């Protein structure tokens, strides 16, 4: 538990049991004001949201109501039946639950409380789970998926009937995903078991606390909110942007230029945490640092693809202060605090100001000492973004994505889970579901379709009545048709659907594919492994690896070396620029007074842009056109993030194609978008065929979007996730691959068939909603298009502008995923033709 050096005034109205008072006294501490206030509100029967920075003693505050109540509980007499769970603690990370068990256990023991604390995660052995059912601990620490499983058990009501509190840790990160939807539905179920149930949410700072306050309590009546306690931030962090001696590159994400300066910083501090945005950046930075590491400082690597054992070793070394630096991605992002970090280095743009605030909170986990952080922008636009983020942090600005409505695939999973636990009445369950904040606006019609989907697939062709998973019996209740349904449900619970992955298995060099092989280094996405050919070298787990081949579900590697090293690309981990930060960056561009705060080379770049082209006003959209080579380019600067820009690029090229501008391609970054064509687009705009305003008209989000979406690979990918969550297809488990692709039905094939035969099916609706919000960022694009209407500034140039340079350098690095597969095949087929001459063919006569 974190230290409690600050004294707070005792709140006389709160009954703090004597052992607690003594414990605080022995430690020379006294409870903090927010801990006492939270206790007082909880004792008055309220649910509470506590917003506090890291290091504020949040966790102890969250458990205070439970611990004081349990301390006053009469002891269980011998022979008396075990009570149920008293307090349920839910965290987004398994590791966090384990961490809390350790940290909470200590004060509980010191105070001498007769309280049992246990974890229940995917790693908990089955005998322990069974024992927990018979003799539940007082406090159970678990994850949203485990709660869903507990609810789907026939003894759920008994297990939870004594429940008093649910403590939800890192609530801000839980609520923004589908896991949050599943958890909200689980909470609604718990409230149905125990109407007086109180919740305590622990959260970092968020933009809209009211959303979380509603989330914590039943929405009957709608709009009900939990109480709010806010602890203002500790000492102001000391953050700087690296003002590099080197030239900051125009584009790219590696920040290689700054390696010597980063290394110097590591040398000067006890323990440095280096954060990057993607796993590939982590691998690259780690490699580069070791190349510079003349003193052989202990520098470690930590990211989600690495083997668990290796990650645990790094975490332990960190806790023991045996390391000088760790390169990490978001796996270390959440509230786990170990070790004595005195510097946080953030490589690449922080993308969202809240994210930045949290990462910096990692340093110096004591509220009153200032945290120290250095931002390392990887390119010039990132310099602007870092500056904006920095200003935002000082301003205390907070931005988290707006909460979205509860997903229907998650609801389907929940409905089946409820049925697995006990028969349900549809009217009652509907009311219960609507009491969960994400589903407060759910319509009865939609709910009924979900139930129909769970029962028979919900198809217009009523073919599966006899295979129904749940059925309505004569008493009007829905129940599972047979026990196998519940078994299947248990195997597939959860909302995290991984990309197919392969284990990376290390073998000694020269052994090739034979032999049992050595340790597993971690996991790698299947689609990346598929692009490798034996002999390729790639970077993983901080090593250069030599690709030997794929054996069943393993990617076999040996020690590699040499040039031409490929860095794996990962699908996850790319965060788009937050709306708030984008706004800040636009503001900074428009206001030349603020350039003084920028490094000289970057300010120069903007001055040059002003001279050669123009800088847009804060609310305007700048569109530049210029010829280059035998092509014509259009570069737009919406600053709305890569996802929204990709969608915009797809739609713009469709329109330009219709206008016969013969577009050839586009590339999108977080900041801007470049489209190139054979025809002069500036001339088209001038002749109003179409005008620039027409080209960027919001109506592109209608039919154009619809038409493009249906063929989009993004929709297929999203469908797969929805279909797994909704229980239409089963999760893939490691090793299943062996059974062969020809046996299973792939989600892509199901998608194609369903789309052509029942385009309005509820799962396709859920898929489109998901894709619009997620991969396409349609809402953000819509806001942008509406904002810039009548405010598009066109500048025609003879040549490329300074501002356009970064995006132009991206051309060729990132390919547009489209119909290109056929042309790749043609290339391969032509290659054969070329190499081998026209194939010997049978006699052709008589064919035509």
């Amino acid at each position: 538990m974190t230290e409690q050096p600050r004294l707070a005034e005792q709140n006389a109205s709160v009954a703090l049991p004597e052992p607690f008072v003594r414990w605080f006294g022995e430690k020379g501490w006294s409870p903090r004001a927010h801990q006492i206030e939270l206790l007082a509100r909880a004792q008055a029967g309220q649910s509470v949201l506590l917003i506090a920075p890291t290091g504020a003693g949040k966790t102890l505050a969250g458990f205070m109501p439970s611990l004081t109540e349990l301390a006053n509980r009469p002891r269980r007499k011998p022979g008396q039946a075990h009570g149920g769970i008293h307090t349920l603690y839910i965290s987004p990370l398994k590791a966090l639950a384990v961490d809390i068990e350790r940290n909470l256990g200590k004060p509980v023991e010191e105070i001498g409380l007769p309280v049992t604390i246990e974890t229940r995660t995917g790693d908990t052995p089955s005998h322990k789970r069974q024992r927990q059912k018979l003799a539940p601990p007082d406090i159970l620490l678990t994850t949203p998926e485990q709660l869903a499983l507990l609810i789907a058990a026939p003894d759920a009501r008994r297990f939870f009937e004594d429940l008093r509190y649910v403590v939800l840790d890192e609530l801000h990160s839980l609520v923004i995903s589908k896991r949050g939807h599943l958890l909200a539905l689980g909470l609604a179920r718990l409230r149905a078991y125990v109407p007086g149930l109180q919740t305590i949410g622990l959260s970092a700072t968020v933009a809209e606390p009211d959303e979380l306050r509603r989330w914590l309590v039943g929405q009957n009546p709608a709009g009900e909110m939990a109480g709010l306690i806010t602890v203002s931030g500790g000492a102001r962090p000391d953050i700087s942007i690296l003002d590099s001696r080197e030239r900051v590159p125009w584009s790219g994400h590696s920040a290689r230029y700054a390696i010597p300066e980063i290394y110097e910083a590591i040398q000067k501090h006890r323990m440095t945490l280096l954060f990057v945005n993607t796993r590939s950046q982590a691998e690259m930075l780690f490699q580069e640092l070791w190349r510079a590491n003349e003193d052989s400082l202990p520098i470690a690597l930590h990211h989600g693809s690495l083997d668990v054992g290796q990650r645990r070793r790094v975490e332990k070394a960190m806790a023991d202060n045996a390391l000088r630096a760790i390169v990490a991605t978001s796996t270390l992002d959440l509230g786990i605090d170990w070790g004595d970090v005195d510097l946080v280095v953030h490589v690449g743009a922080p993308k969202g100001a809240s994210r930045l605030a949290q990462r910096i909170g990692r340093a110096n986990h004591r509220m009153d000492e200032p945290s120290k952080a250095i931002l390392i922008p990887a390119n010039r636009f990132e310099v602007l973004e870092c500056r904006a983020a920095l200003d935002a942090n000082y301003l205390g600005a907070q931005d988290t994505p707006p909460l979205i409505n509860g997903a229907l695939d998650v609801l389907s999973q929940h409905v089946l889970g409820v049925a697995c636990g006990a028969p349900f009445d549809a009217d009652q369950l509907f009311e219960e579901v609507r009491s969960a904040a994400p589903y407060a606006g759910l319509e009865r019609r939609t709910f009924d379709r979900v139930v129909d989907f769970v029962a028979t697939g919900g198809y217009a062709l009523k073919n599966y009545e006899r295979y129904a998973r749940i059925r309505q019996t004569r008493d009007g209740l829905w129940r599972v048709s047979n026990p196998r349904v519940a078994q299947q449900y248990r195997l597939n619970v959860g909302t995290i659907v991984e990309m197919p992955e392969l284990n990376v298995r290390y073998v000694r060099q020269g052994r090739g594919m034979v032999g049992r092989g050595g340790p597993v280094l971690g996991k790698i996405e299947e689609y990346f492994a598929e692009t490798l050919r034996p002999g390729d070298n790639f970077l993983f787990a901080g090593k250069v690896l030599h690709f030997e081949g794929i054996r069943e579900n393993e990617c076999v590697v040996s020690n590699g070396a040499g040039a031409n090293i490929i860095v794996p690309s990962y699908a996850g981990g790319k965060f788009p620029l937050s709306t708030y930060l984008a706004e800040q960056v636009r503001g900074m561009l428009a206001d030349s007074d603020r350039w003084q705060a920028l490094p000289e080379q970057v300010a120069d770049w903007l001055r040059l842009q002003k001279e050669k082209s123009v800088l847009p006003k804060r609310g305007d959209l700048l569109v530049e056109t210029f010829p280059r080579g035998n092509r014509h380019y259009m570069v737009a600067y919406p600053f709305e993030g890569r996802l929204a820009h990709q969608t915009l690029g797809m739609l713009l090229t469709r329109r330009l194609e219709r206008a016969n501008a013969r577009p050839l391609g586009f590339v999108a970054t977080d900041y801007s978008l470049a489209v190139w064509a054979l025809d002069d687009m500036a001339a088209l705009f001038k002749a109003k065929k179409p005008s620039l305003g027409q080209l960027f008209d919001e109506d592109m989000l209608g039919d154009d979007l619809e038409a493009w979406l249906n063929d989009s690979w993004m929709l297929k990918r999203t469908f797969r996730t929805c279909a797994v969550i909704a229980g239409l297809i089963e999760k893939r488990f490691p090793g299943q691959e062996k059974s062969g692709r020809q046996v299973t039905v792939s989600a892509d094939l199901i998608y194609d068939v369903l789309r052509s035969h029942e385009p309005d099916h509820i799962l396709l609706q859920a898929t489109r909603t998901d894709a619009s919000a997620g991969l396409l960022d349609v809402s953000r694009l819509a806001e942008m298009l509406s904002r810039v209407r009548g405010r598009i500034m066109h500048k025609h140039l003879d040549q490329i502008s300074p501002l356009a340079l970064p995006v132009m350098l991206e051309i060729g690095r990132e390919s547009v995923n489209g119909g290109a597969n056929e042309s790749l095949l043609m290339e391969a087929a032509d290659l054969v033709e070329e190499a081998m001459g026209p194939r010997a063919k049978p006699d052709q006569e008589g064919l035509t």
Partner: protein
Amino acid sequence: MNFSLARATLIAEADVVGIAGERAICDPRGVLYFPDLRLLAVSDLHLEKGSSFARRGALIPPYDTAATLLRLQAVIADYQPAIVISLGDSFHDGGGAERMHQSFRERLEALMAGRDWFWVAGNHDPEAPADLPGETVRELAIGSLLFRHEPSKARTEGEVAGHLHPCARIVQRGRSVRRRCFAGDGGRMIMPAFGAYTGSLNVLDRAYAGLFRRETLMAYMLGAERIFAISGSMLRPG
């Protein structure tokens, strides 16, 4: 010959292959047509796979039979074959024909009318499909060709088989493309699976061991409108 001329003019040279001296068109939709025999071969329809899964609790959309029949209908309309051979695993399981929706059964019967139709027995459907016309056979020899469901391990010139659901994969410009394919070495031909829900297995998988002469193995990968003939040496596993 009665072979539809309109279709013939569309066929690129690359789509024509020789199997034991017999000319065949590899149609990018996944069927083989032997113009001299007026014979259409289609493999692994796996009709009623959807309902077969539903029976076991996975309620995947019940439209696969409709989708498969629709595509088969288009192919038959183009070639107007006198003989159709369904090369086994026509139904996903023994009860498939029985479960088939009446409207689909009628559609299938309409396709069968006026031609010789052979159901080759497969491992999924060893028995004759219930209440459907057509002749069920274990294998069928026509001219120099031998049609059977599972390719035999012994070398057999002129064998046309299914069962394995071949697909092939290439990597070009750092990107991977995987497609269903016909796999042949000039002597034997293994057909891609035609059914809407059928997956596929890479021709380099061990399941194909010993079936082809390595030097002459070609994968005829299915494109949107044409076949791409790729030599075995360019193929990738997985």
